[in-house]
C-alpha cells in the first residue's frame, strides 16, 4: 500500500485522516499515486492538479524521502521506500499568512 500524507484542508475535504493508504498499480509514480488518490476521493480532483492540464497547482509541492519531487517528471518512478510503504508521499501546501 502507498501512503499519502494530505495537508489539513484536503483532509477536511476528503473527510479522511491525514494519512491515507492506496492501492497503486505499478509503476508507482506521482501520476499513478495522484490518479489513485483522486479515484478514491473524487472531491480532490482539481485541488492538487489542474483539471485540464493535469499540472501541479502552483502553491502545492510533493516531497518524498525528505526530497522535493515537485519538479520531477510525473511519470518518474518513485523511490522503493514509497513503493514498499516505508515512506509516505507528502502533499504540502505553501505556508503563507493572511
Amino acid at each position, binding site marked *: 500500500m502507498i501512503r499519502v500524507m494530505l495537508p489539513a*484542508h484536503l483532509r477536511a475535504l476528503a473527510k479522511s485522516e491525514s494519512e491515507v493508504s492506496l492501492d497503486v498499480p505499478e509503476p508507482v509514480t506521482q501520476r499513478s499515486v495522484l490518479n489513485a488518490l*483522486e*479515484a478514491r*476521493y*473524487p*472531491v480532490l480532483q*482539481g*485541488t492538487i492538479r489542474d*483539471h485540464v492540464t493535469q499540472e501541479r497547482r502552483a502553491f502545492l509541492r510533493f516531497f518524498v524521502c525528505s526530497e522535493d519531487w515537485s519538479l520531477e517528471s510525473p511519470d518518474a518512478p518513485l523511490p522503493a521506500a514509497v513503493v514498499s510503504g516505508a515512506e509516505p508521499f507528502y502533499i504540502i501546501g505553501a505556508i503563507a499568512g493572511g
Partner: protein
Amino acid sequence: MSRVRVLVGTKKGAFILSADGKRDKWDVSGPFFAGWEIYHVKASPVDPNRIYASQSSGWFGQVIQRSDDGGKTWDAPGGGITPVPGEMPKASNKFVYDTSASGKPLTTHQWYDGTQHPWEFKRVWHLEPSLTDREAVYAGVEDAALFRSTDAGQSWHELPGLRGHGTGPKWQPGAGGMCLHTVILDPSDPNRIYIAISAAGAFRTDDGGKTWKPINKGLKSQYIPDPNAEVGHCVHHVAMHKSHPNVLFMQKHWDIMRSDNAGDTWHEVSGNLPTDFGFVIDVHAHEPETIYVVPIKSDSEHFPIEGKLSVYRSRKGGNEWEALTKGLPQKDCYVNVLRDAMAVDSLDSCGVYFGTTGGQVFGSADAGNTWMPIVQSLPAVYSVEVQTLP
C-alpha cells in the same frame, strides 16, 4: 411563526444566522469550511433545505458544496469516497470552458495592460439556483462566464453563447478580477436571464442562454476610453423585484441606474446621494419602488464618508434618497459592503441585511428604519443571502 436564515459567506468560512420572525435573537452556526474563502451561499427556492456554497482557495482551487438539510451537513456533490476505484466520477469542482465548437478557446479578453489574454478559470463568485427545478443551478465565474448544472452541482457546463457573442476581446478585469457576479432569473419568463460582469457590463438572454446581447445603453463611464461604449462598463450589481421583472436597478462603479425596459436602456437615478459609488443594491420585498444602496466614498477610498456607515433608501425608485443610520456606526467605521452582501427577507415587515468587510452583519426588521448588529466579528463578509422559512 415564520423564521429567517441568513447565509453568510466570508473570507474564512461560511456562517448561518437564524432567528424567528421577530428577528431580535439570533443563533450563529459555523464556521463551515473554516479557512476557505466562501464567495457565495444560496439556497434553492424550490427546496429551502438545499443550499449551495462556493468554496475557494488560492492553494486548492474551487469546490462546490451542497447541503440538503438546511446547512447542518455538507458534501461536495459527487465527492464521496469511492470504495472501488473505477471510472472517475464527476467532480463538482470541474469548471472547464467550452471549446466544443472549435476545440479552441472561444476568444480572449483584454488584460489590465490592454493586451489580449486567455480565459483562465479562477473561482465561482455567484450561485443562482433555479426558480423551478430543484436540480438546476447557475454559477457565475471568474474569468467571466456562466455555467449551469442540471444535476444539483455535480457537473457543470458552460453556456458558451455569452462569451461567444463577439465582444469578449473588449471585456477586461476590474480590480477584483473579471468576474460574472450577478445572475438574475426572470420569474415571468424561464428563457430570460440577466447577468453582469466587471468590467464588461450587463447582458441578457431571451432564449435560455443560447444567445446574449449587451444591455448597456445609457450607461456612461468616464473612466473608459469611450464613456458610452457598448461594453466595458464596471457594473457592480443589479437587482430586480420579482413582480416587476422588466424594472432593473444597477449600482455601477459610479452611478445608480434604472431600466424600465428589461435593460434595453438605462437612466441615472443617483439623485441626492452623497456619493453614488458603491457595490450593493437591493429591492424591498413588497415595495418594488423601494430600493437600498450603501454609498461608499470613492473608487479609491472604499469606505463610508467620514466613517459613518449609512444605508440609503429611496421609496420612489431612485432620485430621492433618505439616509438610514439608526443603529449603524456613525463614527470611525471604515469598512466596505461588497456587491453580494445585501439581501432582504419577505416577512410582512421586510427585513434588510448586509455584511461588511469588517465582519459585521447588520439586520433591520423594519425595512431599514432601525438596525442592529447580528454579529460583529466575523471574517470579512463577502456575501449575504436570506431565506424566509415557514
